């Protein structure tokens, strides 16, 4: 991701050396050259191995277990659809999905607004590349701290006797501490926004940095207002970044466990916390079914977003 510097031209450093090395006609001096098909396998191998061992195998395992039978003491191989049936007919499931989707939508809207504006500022308003790098670091450095710590850090700030309430009271904005700040949906959203805005800034800044600033002048020259330049030129040209950022934020919120548990004070549940309750009760088959449904649900969401914007086509540019 080239978010640090605006490239001088569109000079895509993409698919570089590796492929050209394969295409180069074999030199006669080096008779020990590997055949091209083997080179390709070596190139694909590491990623394929990681994906197989850490993704495909466990997912297949979940899929198999999700059809198993279980009781209080163990799980038994079977092919039952009961786990799915129970999951999908329980109102609690739907409530949790609706609640997670609501969080995801609100957080998506806020991080998109913030992320786009921050990225736009960094790319188009800061001309000095050193200053830009410093600002990017300021955005990124908090990310070096664990998300759990950054979540917990909000508690003393937003609490009933927390720093924020004390500031408000000292300023005379309110006479008694505000209770909705912590252990509420508000607290959950604030924490999500704090955690995930950078996930928007990065991809959007990357897209924006590929826009020739002359395009903005050309739009102005043609009589476009700032708003029209945004809607007609900048946003259409940054939709890859917007989509990538949206996918990151959506999947993070849908897969969250810790933030909702810590910050909602037990008032909201997340899909994963539902799942973890089942795991703690050693109900592995329903937990697997739950996990499969979540994976499929998120996959469909991502698929829809990819359908709207062909990210792959844009990325290879």
């Amino acid at each position, binding site marked *: 991701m080239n978010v640090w510097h605006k490239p001088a031209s569109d000079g895509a450093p993409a698919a570089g050396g590796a492929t050209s090395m394969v295409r180069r006609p074999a030199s006669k001096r080096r008779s020990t050259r590997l055949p091209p098909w083997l080179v390709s396998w070596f190139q694909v191998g590491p990623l394929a191995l990681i994906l197989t061992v850490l993704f495909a195998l466990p997912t297949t395992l979940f899929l198999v277990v999700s059809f198993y039978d279980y009781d209080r003491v163990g799980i038994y191989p079977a092919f039952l659809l009961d786990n799915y049936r129970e999951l999908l007919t329980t109102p609690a499931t739907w409530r949790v999905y609706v609640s997670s989707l609501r969080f995801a939508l609100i957080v998506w809207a806020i991080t998109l607004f913030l992320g786009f504006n921050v990225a736009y500022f960094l790319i188009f308003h800061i001309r000095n590349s050193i200053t830009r790098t410093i600002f990017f670091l300021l955005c990124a450095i908090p990310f070096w701290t664990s998300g759990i710590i950054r979540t917990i850090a909000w508690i003393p700030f937003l609490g009933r006797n927390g720093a924020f309430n004390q500031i408000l009271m000292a300023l005379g904005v309110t006479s008694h501490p505000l209770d909705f700040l912590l252990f509420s949906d508000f607290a959950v959203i604030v924490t999500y926004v704090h955690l995930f805005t950078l996930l928007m800034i990065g991809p959007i800044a990357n897209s924006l940095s590929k826009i020739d600033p*002359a395009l903005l002048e050309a739009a*102005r020259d043609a009589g476009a207002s700032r708003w029209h330049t945004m809607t*007609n030129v900048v946003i259409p040209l940054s939709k890859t970044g917007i989509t990538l950022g949206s996918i990151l934020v959506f999947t993070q919120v849908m897969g969250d466990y810790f933030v909702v548990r810590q910050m909602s004070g037990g008032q909201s549940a997340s899909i994963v916390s539902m799942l973890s309750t089942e795991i703690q009760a050693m109900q592995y088959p329903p937990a697997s079914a739950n996990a499969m449904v979540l994976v499929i649900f998120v996959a469909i969401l991502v698929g829809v977003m990819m359908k709207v914007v062909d990210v792959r086509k844009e990325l290879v540019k």
Partner: protein
Amino acid sequence: MDNRFDVELVSVTKRYGATLAVDAISLRIPRGTYCCLLGPSGCGKTTTLRMIAGHEAVTDGDILIHGENVSDLPPIKRGTAMMFQSYALFPHMSCLDNVAFSLKMRGVAKKERHSRARDFLALVHMADYADRLPAQLSGGQQQRIALARALINRPRVLLLDEPLSALDPFLRVKVREELKRLQRELSITFIHVTHSQDEAMALADLMVVMQDGHIRQSAPPREVFERPVSPFIARFIGSHNVLRAPHGQIAVRADRCRLGVANDGPHVNGQVIAVEYQGAMVRVAMKTDAGDEVSALVPDQMFYRQPAEPGDLATLVWSEQDTHALMQV
């Protein structure tokens, strides 16, 4: 107001911090003029163009278009349109939408703006490419689209920022002719920034030579070529020999110089350092005894009657009437 001029610059100045990019220049461009701003890089020509376009604020001075002070107006209210050096076509829009863009911004209905955009695509012979994306076109074709996009608003002044620099030499000559033809047909003022004196001489009605943020000479190309005011101009437009004379520096056109025998007339002695065959002419470069580099452009027939070789001693001669005194700047 006086409307004989399309564009007037009144001591226009541009400062970037402590750097003076354009220093109080004044210029009047008569109606329907093909004006070339010419100069080496960093001379302020592009900044001047961008100030006329309204993409750069003037630090001081005024810009008038059709007698109206436009210094503080946005580009669209100035009646100017700019063609960018990189063409700046919107990569996500078809050629038709690119050309129709400013109509869309003015709220013209889709059907009408598309039909008008098609007219302008036809004007630049690109009607068959309406549905293509810019990336699917060659550089020359992209430029035509950019031209159509700039012209669709019927600007009073068209501003071109180094429009030919990205084209190969063959295409450059073709496009050059076409720009001139368009300017004649539309009879509006074109202001064309370039660093190539060939381009400026071929195109311009008014040639404005700039250096270090100043206008050094502004006149029709023929006058600039025949009577360059300073050694800088004479050297910059090329094909001139700048020589020392008792009363300051003089310029002599290289094509008026011959290799020959020193008579009573003006001459300078030196050594041939290079011979370049250029087709109709042969360029003989010499180093004078005083250390100046000079050259003679000799018709090929004349040269081959008495050829010279690098290393030969030779005398450069010309006639008194071709001597042109230069102002010392």
